Structure formats: C-alpha cells, structure tokens
C-alpha cells in the first residue's frame, strides 16, 4: 500500500493519503480529471481518464496514487498527442497461472460461485484489470506488477452490474458521482458539500462547470454534488467476449434486464460526445440497426467500448422498433493495456543456427537470415570464394537442409506418392534429385532421395527452411501407409566439399574410395562418421558430408587444415548462389513462383508420368496439354548484371517477365540470369531487354553444359 505523498496533475501538486486512488486525491483537492461528467469506480466512465506517467487513457479511479506520479489532464474529445520520443523499454513481467476454473469478479455472485466450486477469484477491482477472455480459455489480467495470464478449462464471469450513468442536459458537469464512488469518497474523508441522491433519471443538471442543481420530475434541488442512483445494467462485456468459449456468466452479469427509459436529450456516448439528437439524426438517415448506429454515430467506439452507452442505444432502438436488439459484439479488450504490456514475454521467431555458427562468425562472415536459419552470406570476398570453388576447393555449410529418415514396408510407396519419379529405380547407394508437387502440380520443394542399404530405408533432403512444412505435408499424405518418418534436420550436420581438388582434399582426411555421381557411401572422414554423397550444385566435383551435428566444427577444421596448401576457403551463400546460377540450378522460393509447374520451370524432365499416381499428376497431365504461357529461362548479356527482380521487356517494349537470379559470371565473362519470360504466340523470345541491356536466351546450364567438371 502506498504511503502519503504528492503527485502532480498538470502543474498542480496534489497531496494523497495512503490508499488513495488518483481520482480520490484529485477530487479531495477540488479537481476533476476531465473537467466534468459522472464518475464511477468501475473503470468504465471515461470521465476519469488521464495521462499517467506517459500513458494516456488511464482510469484514475483504478490507479493507486504514488509519490511523484506525473498526471496530465486529458479533456474528453481532445485526443492526446502521440509520444514525441521513445518511452524507455521497461520490461514487463508475465506470470502464467493454471486452474481448472476461475471466477472473474469479487462481488457477491463471484464469491458465491467461487465458494461453491472451489475456484479462485480474479477480481477486476483489486489492482488487476481483466484485459479479456481469449481462446484457451485464457484470462489476461493487467496489473502494476505485470501481466497475469491464467490458463483454465472454464471461466465463470461474475462481474455483476454497472451503475447507469445519467443521460440528460448537464451530464457533463462536475460533481456527479455513482453511489459506490460517493461511498468511497466519503470513506476517504472527501467533503462533497451538499449532496442530493437521485433515484430516477433527472430532467437536467444545472450549473456552469460544477453542478449547482438537479431537476428530477418537477422538482429542483440545489446542491454541490449529486449521487446518481438511477439503476444498473449487466456488466456483461466479458461474458459476451467469451461467447463460443467455455465461459459461463452468473449473477447480475448474466441477467437480461429491460433497458432504461430512452432519454431525449444530452450526451449519450461520453467517449465520443455523441448526443441523443445525433443518434436520432443517424436513425432518421437510415442507420437503423445497432451496428450501423454505432458505426455512424461513433457511440460505443470509445475508450469504454459501449459500457456506458449501450443500454441507452438499446432503449433508443427499442423505442423505435419495439424490440430489444442485442448489444454490439464484444471484442477484446475489456480493459486496456499498453503495447509493451501486451508484448510482455514475447520473442521474435527464433532463427536456428547450425553448429558451425560460431565458426562462421569467428571467420568474419556476414550472417543473414534465410529460410529460418542464420547463414553466412559472405566471408570476405565473394569473387575469391567463387574462384576457390571453380579452380581449387572450398567448403560450405549446408547443415540447414531439411533432412528426413524414411523407413518401413511402405517407404518406397510413400515416396512414390510424394514425388513424380520412379523411386523403385533408385537403387541402394544411389540418389536422385526430385521435385515435390502440390495437388495443382505446382512445385512445393525440391530435394534429394537416397536409398540406404538394400532395405526399405531412405534419406531425404529438402530445401533449407522447407523442413517443417515438408514434414506436415509428407505425414498428411502418407498417414495411411506403413512408413516411419524421422525429421533429423536439426541433428544432422552437412558440409559441402566442392571444387576440382575436392577429391584430393578428401583423400587427405581419409576418404579415397572412388564415388560416382549420385552415389553415396558411409565412411569416416577425419574420424567423423559421415554419409558421403556425390552430387553437384556448384557445377564442380562435390561431396556432401552428412554427420552428427555435434562434430561439425571438428570436421570443418580438419578440412580447412588438411587443404590449406590446396587453397581451401569457405564459401558463403552469395557465392553458392552465383555458382549454382552458372549451372542453371533453381532455388525453390527464389526462382519458382506460386504457380510453377515443372514444365514452367523447365524441369519437366524430372516428371515421370509412368511412375504411378503421385500428387499433382492429374494437374500435370491436364495442363501439359495446354500451350505454355511463361517459362523460367536462362538469359545472358554482356553488360553488368541487373538486380534480381528487374523487369524483362520484349524487344518491342511489352512486358515479358522478371529476373529471379542474376550475377556476373567471372568464369564466363558475362552476366547470367534466370528469368520468367512470357510466351508470345506460343514462342519464347530469343532476345529481350533487361535494365537497358539486350539479353539473349541461353541454353542451361551456362557453365560446363556437358557436365564434365562435376563428373571430375
């Protein structure tokens, strides 16, 4: 509990005593937070909001006074300024709690419900404010000490009733209080002067700034303060917010009560200062339902979200239609919280690191996010990295590949279903580059299938970042088969050893057996157990070394040490991307688009229509009979490479497509590109223009078309 002290309200020092809410102290000092309007203690009336320590729209009736608080008045209708500087990032604590049932509301109904079912109470009036009930169900509470997230099976809403605030001329004067507030003020020793309690809706309040008299019926009462005791309305925002969730309302919050008499004059929505006359005008202009009336008049769209005005909107409509329309939809939030409070405990999606991350950083690599992984983009000189691959040997971290072990009597059948190739012809110790299609025949991913041993066991790799989607996809499509999938993406490290001297390097670290293209074998390399896969993405002799990821750094170091005199250096993603581009290899997601069939990608050679009923087969067969509208093609030009994404123009100046990959090929002495190019009358153009440069359509691959180098 806070002690005595002072806070400032605008420039005024306001003293407070222990237990004072800001509102109590302000009223004791003869101040009103917003100048006027009926005040309550429920955190609903917008008349008590103020900016507190840099946070606007804070209910002073809910906020305990503390020494040195900076409170600024916020006049109703005058929106505050946006902060001109960044507030300090103050960490907000989050506490997660778990219960079977919680009761919201510490009133009579709440205490009763809690006692009968033995559930704890979340009391909105006890320093915590219930922000909302969310799917889970989860009850989010904002408190000065931080956020409390209570995860439950069921919620009982026992928030009782709210006092009706009066709607009549003069209802924006100071000196109007609900009975509960008056009680609190009197208990706190605040002198309210001459008070009058009214128990039926008044005709009007009179006064200049403060109330001086109230007229009820034919009677006029002079006073300094009016205690407005004119009835209640269900406090059901949380109950309505919980519709469709395991949420029950009890007590006053659950009752359907007749709305109050429809007022004829005065401000009905204090948050937006909508008057009864404006409601009537909107109605007369055709806004004749609760939601339209709200949206047109703005009544109910302010800080109290209709808690004050919705009973009156109901009576307004009932007066005109004779039927009681439901209140408008209740959505979060019920009580407000700041973005900092709501963001408490949150993190951006974690970006995975291979076990070589520290090694890359130590080597000075620029790291970047790709497909959910941190990857080395470049170490220091991309040209030197490319040159090492083309003329000596280089190593690259490909541990980010999605990787699966597949086993079971139906393993082959499962893969047969997933890829448009004849898996039965992938023999033991062999591997094949494959596409994965969706039902529309569009390319989802690409990868390698390797058959292990003689049995029904395979190792499958997919694109980096594709693993989590691929896992859901393959499990969904093969759930009826006798097959086991193990996702080993994060467990298996992979290093690509590539370049004309790759075999020589591997021989130095213990691997000297001949291994033909697209074959794989188990072997110890530098004492690390590896699966050695002979393939090529760069266009040079390449070996992928799959190994336990805990030993990546050791293997990496051994390769660098053993190949120092061969000129071995690591290459990053930028170099890899350029090298594979020279070979015309696509990167799914970069070169492919949402509607890329294998034919559009120029990869229809990867589709074997004799290989059974693979996913996408029917679409491929159907669209394969139609003329082609666009294709991913190779382009080359003599000028500098365009940026990736540059528009491709046909020679007559019409749009032809866009570049997906581009680089200057040091090896070839020209720019090489992959680009989407549209057909004209079924034909692809031979020449196009990119960034002002004439680019010629080129057969792929650009580099070593015979594949002599990769075969070694």
């Amino acid at each position, binding site marked *: 509990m806070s002690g005595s002290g002072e806070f400032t309200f605008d420039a005024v020092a306001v003293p407070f005593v222990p237990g004072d809410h800001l509102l109590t102290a302000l009223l004791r000092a003869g101040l009103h937070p917003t100048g006027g309007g009926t005040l309550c203690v429920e955190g609903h009336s917008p008349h008590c909001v103020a900016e507190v320590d840099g946070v606007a729209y804070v209910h002073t009736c809910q906020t305990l006074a503390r020494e040195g608080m900076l409170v600024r008045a916020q006049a109703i209708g005058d*929106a505050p300024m946006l*902060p001109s500087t960044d507030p300090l990032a103050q960490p907000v604590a989050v506490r997660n709690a778990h219960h079977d049932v919680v009761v919201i509301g510490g009133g009579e109904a709440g205490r009763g419900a809690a006692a009968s079912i033995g559930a704890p109470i979340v009391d909105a009036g006890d320093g915590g404010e219930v922000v909302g009930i969310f*799917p889970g169900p989860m009850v989010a509470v904002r408190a000065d000490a931080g956020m409390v997230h209570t995860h439950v099976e069921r919620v009982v809403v026992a928030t009782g009733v709210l006092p009706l605030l009066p709607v009549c001329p003069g209802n924006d004067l100071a000196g109007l209080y609900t009975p509960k507030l008056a009680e609190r003020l009197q208990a706190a020793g605040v002198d309210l002067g001459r008070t009058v309690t009214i128990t039926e809706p008044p005709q009007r309040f009179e006064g200049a700034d403060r109330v001086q008299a109230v007229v009820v019926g034919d009677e006029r009462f002079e006073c300094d303060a009016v205690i407005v005791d004119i009835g209640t309305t269900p406090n059901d925002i949380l109950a309505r917010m919980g519709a469709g969730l395991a949420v029950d309302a009890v007590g006053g919050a659950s009752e359907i009560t007749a709305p109050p008499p429809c007022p004829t004059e005065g401000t009905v929505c204090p948050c937006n200062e909508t008057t009864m006359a404006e409601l009537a005008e909107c109605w007369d*202009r055709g806004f004749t339902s609760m939601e339209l009336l709200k949206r047109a008049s703005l009544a109910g769209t302010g800080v109290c979200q209709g808690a004050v005005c919705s009973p009156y909107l109901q009576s307004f409509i009932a007066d005109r239609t004779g039927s009681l329309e439901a209140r408008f939809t209740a959505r979060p939030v019920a009580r407000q919280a700041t973005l900092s409070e709501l963001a408490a405990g949150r993190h*951006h999606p974690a970006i995975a690191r291979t076990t070589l991350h520290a090694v890359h950083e130590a080597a000075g690599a620029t790291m970047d996010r790709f497909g959910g992984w941190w990857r080395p983009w470049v170490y220091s000189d991309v040209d030197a990295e490319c040159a090492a691959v083309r003329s000596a040997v280089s190593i690259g971290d490909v541990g980010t590949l999605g990787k699966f072990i597949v086993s079971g009597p139906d393993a082959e059948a499962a893969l047969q279903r997933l890829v448009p190739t004849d898996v039965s012809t992938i023999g033991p110790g062999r591997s094949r580059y494959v596409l994965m299609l969706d039902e529309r025949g569009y390319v989802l991913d690409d990868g390698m299938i390797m058959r292990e041993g003689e049995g029904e066991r395979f190792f499958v790799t997919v694109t980096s970042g594709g693993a989590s989607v691929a896992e859901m996809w393959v499990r969904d499509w093969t759930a009826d088969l006798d097959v086991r999938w193990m996702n080993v993406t994060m467990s298996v490290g992979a290093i690509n050893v590539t370049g004309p001297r790759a075999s020589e390097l591997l021989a130095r670290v213990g691997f000297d057996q001949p291994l033909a293209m697209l074959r794989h074998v188990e072997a110890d390399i530098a004492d690390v157990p590896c699966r050695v896969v002979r393939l090529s993405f760069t266009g040079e002799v390449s070996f992928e070394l799959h190994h336990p990821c805990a030993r990546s750094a050791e293997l990496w170091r051994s390769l660098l040490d053993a190949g120092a005199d061969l000129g071995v250096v690591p290459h990053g993603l930028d170099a890899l991307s350029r090298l594979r581009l020279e070979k015309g290899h696509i990167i799914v997601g970069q070169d492919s688009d*949402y*509607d890329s069939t294998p034919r559009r990608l120029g990869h229809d050679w990867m589709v074997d229509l004799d290989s059974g009923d693979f996913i996408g087969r029917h679409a491929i067969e159907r669209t394969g009979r139609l003329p082609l509208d666009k294709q991913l093609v190779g382009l080359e030009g003599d000028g500098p490479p365009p940026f990736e*994404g540059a528009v491709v123009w046909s020679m007559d100046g019409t749009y032809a497509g866009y570049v997906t990959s581009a680089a200057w090929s040091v090896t070839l002495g020209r720019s090489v590109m992959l680009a989407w190019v549209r057909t004209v009358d079924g034909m692809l153009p031979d020449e196009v223009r990119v960034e002002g440069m004439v680019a010629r359509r080129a057969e792929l691959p650009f580099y070593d078309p015979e594949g002599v180098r990769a075969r070694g």
Partner: protein
Amino acid sequence: MNEHPEAEITLRWNEPEASYDVVIVGGGGHGLSTAYHLATRHDITRVLVLDAGYIGGGNSGRNTTVIRANYGIPEAVRFYQHSLERYRRLEEETGRSMMHDRKGLLWMAHSEAGVRRERARAAVNQAFGAETVYLEPDEIATTCPEIDLACGGGFPAVMGASFHQGATARHDRVVWALAEGAMRCGVHVAPHTAVTGLIHEHGRIVGVETPAGRVAAGTVVSAVGGNATLLADMAGVRLPIKTHPLQAFVTNRYQRRFDPIVASGDLGFYVSQTARGQMLLGAEIDRQPSYSRGSTYELLASLSHRAITVLPFMRNLRVLRQWTGSCDMSPDYSPIMGDTGVDGFLVTTGWGTWGFKAIPAGGECMAEHIATGVAPELMAPFSLDRFERDRTLADRGSSGTH
C-alpha cells in the same frame, strides 16, 4: 468535437421484390460498388443487393483500409492503380467524404531475401505507373523518423521502398457512400436477408431463395466474402479458394501526426494512423484456413511485440479493440472476377487481403461485364477459367501483409 458527416448520408432499405435484372449477394464494398456502377454507368437499376447481416459488416468493415497499387505483376499493378485513382475521385463523384488521405507507404526489408522481394516489386510498379522509390536506411529515417532503424538490434532495416500514392480511407464511409449512390438511382438494398439457395433452371441460375421468399434474377452475382465457396457450391461452381482469418487491432485516438503507412514484410507487420487518430495495426493471415472470427491473445501479443520493435514510440499506447476478418485466398494470390461457366452466375472473390483497395475498380469492372456481357480488359486476366486454361497470375506482390 464530433465530426458526424455520416449524418449527411441517407440510406433507405427495401424488402425484396419478386424479380430483378441483377441480384447481388453480399452488401459489402464489392457488391455495393457493382450495384453503384451498374446504376450510374449502365443505367441498370433493377438491382437488388442482399446481405445476411448489415451492410459493410463483413470484410469491408474489418479490413485495415490501406489503398495501394504496388503489386507484383503488370495486370495487378494496372488494376490496383486504376482503383487507387478512382478512389481519389470517388469523394467528389459521390459528394461524400470518405476521409481519403494520401499519406504514402513505406515498406521495409531487413534481409537479403526481403530486399530481393521489395526490389522486384518496386521494379514492376515503376514500370506500370505505380511510382515507387528505393530508399537507403538514412532515407527511411527521413521519411519516418519514428522508425528504429536497428529494430531493437535484431532486424536492422536494409532498405525501404516508398510508394508515395499509398492512402487510407474510412471503410464504412466507402460502403455507405456507394450504397447511398446506388439507392439514389433506385437500387434496392435488403440487409439481414440471407441467401439460402439458388434457383436453377435449364442449367442456369435464375434467382435466389431467401427466408423472405424467392427472388428472380436475370443475373446473380456472388460478392460474398468468407463464405464465397459455400455460395458458389449452391451454383455447382467449385472455387479454388481457401478462407483464412486475418486479425487486426487499433489503439485509442491520438492527434493525427503519424505518416506514412509503415510495413515490414520480414516482420509481418504494418501500421497506419487512421483519420480518427487511432494507430491501426495488422499482420499476416493465419496459416490455418478457418471461418473463425475469434480474436486470439497470440496475435495481440506478437503483433504488439513486432510493432514496438519497429516503432518504439508506440510502447505506451493502449489498445482499444481487436477484431478479425476472413480472407479468401486463391492459389495464385490474385482475385477472381467474372463468369463461372454457369449461366446467370458471376463471382467477384479471391480478394484475400487486397479487397478494400479494389472496391472502385472491382465494382466498375463487374458492372461493365454484367451490362455488356464482355469482361473489360482490366479484369479479363482475372477470370475463373484461368485455372482451367493454366493462365494463372502468380502475384508475389500480394504475399505481403495487406
């Protein structure tokens, strides 16, 4: 303080009559824009617009009101650029303020992959009249000094693309002004009237069934959001649409100051300040298809987190209200407009996260198509049969967040 110009708009409702030339199912922006253009451009006024709820209560009232044209293929850039230009004239044409506010759109990238995406988009925008400028980080700071260029240290901005013509408008006003304009010409609008069936005759659709009775129609147009596939199913048309939820929230009101619209593709976040002064935040669609309009804490928390990462000045702003809309997503991320292969039944759907900005052009095109029987050039590429003909329009410019 209250502006209440809504009070200038007058809406008049009708009970459905027995027969119309055109019945439009869905009283949102697209349905009402189609009716408006039928009446004002083609003198077709025997038109009924039906809605299961109140008008503008679906995605038209749940979107985040961004008007932009920076999409990823020429067909889309042309279409949205036309729509954007129509929006600029719509206030004058209808005589109603829509709080149209051109404030510019700043799109940031925080990775090489993001840069590639934004540069590609900027290039095709630039080529087709949607002026887009490439910004270096220091220029981002000039354009929007509130941005933390380091994004908390974790996501330094690498580049930005500035689309100067980016704008916002108040969604309800757009819906109401089009409704009023159509009603003035004699179009009937019947809210709270659900379509429960379609009437088939000799292989064509000749009307709709409602709880209030049958309504005959020369043409039935589905301008439904969220339930588009269910209505099309009644006509025997299978739409390649999946519906995903999209959530958003607003803060309380503040003095208007914050320009432009700021978006980050890498963080999946965008924000603008509305004409009423609220900061309006949106994210990407939920991955899981669903018709749910429930609001999750997950979204509230993670979007708040992303927002204050980019714009730390928002840390102490309080959230006012959260809501959810439904996005009808096509496989190529482009809309679907026009004939369906079933006579008498047309659709305008696949509006994903880009429906609001397409309201003027979408309605204009649909109206011309209905009136002339020929799809205008601007919308012709977006026909449903493009999937059958394998003439899909993959649009990577749609894959952003709004």
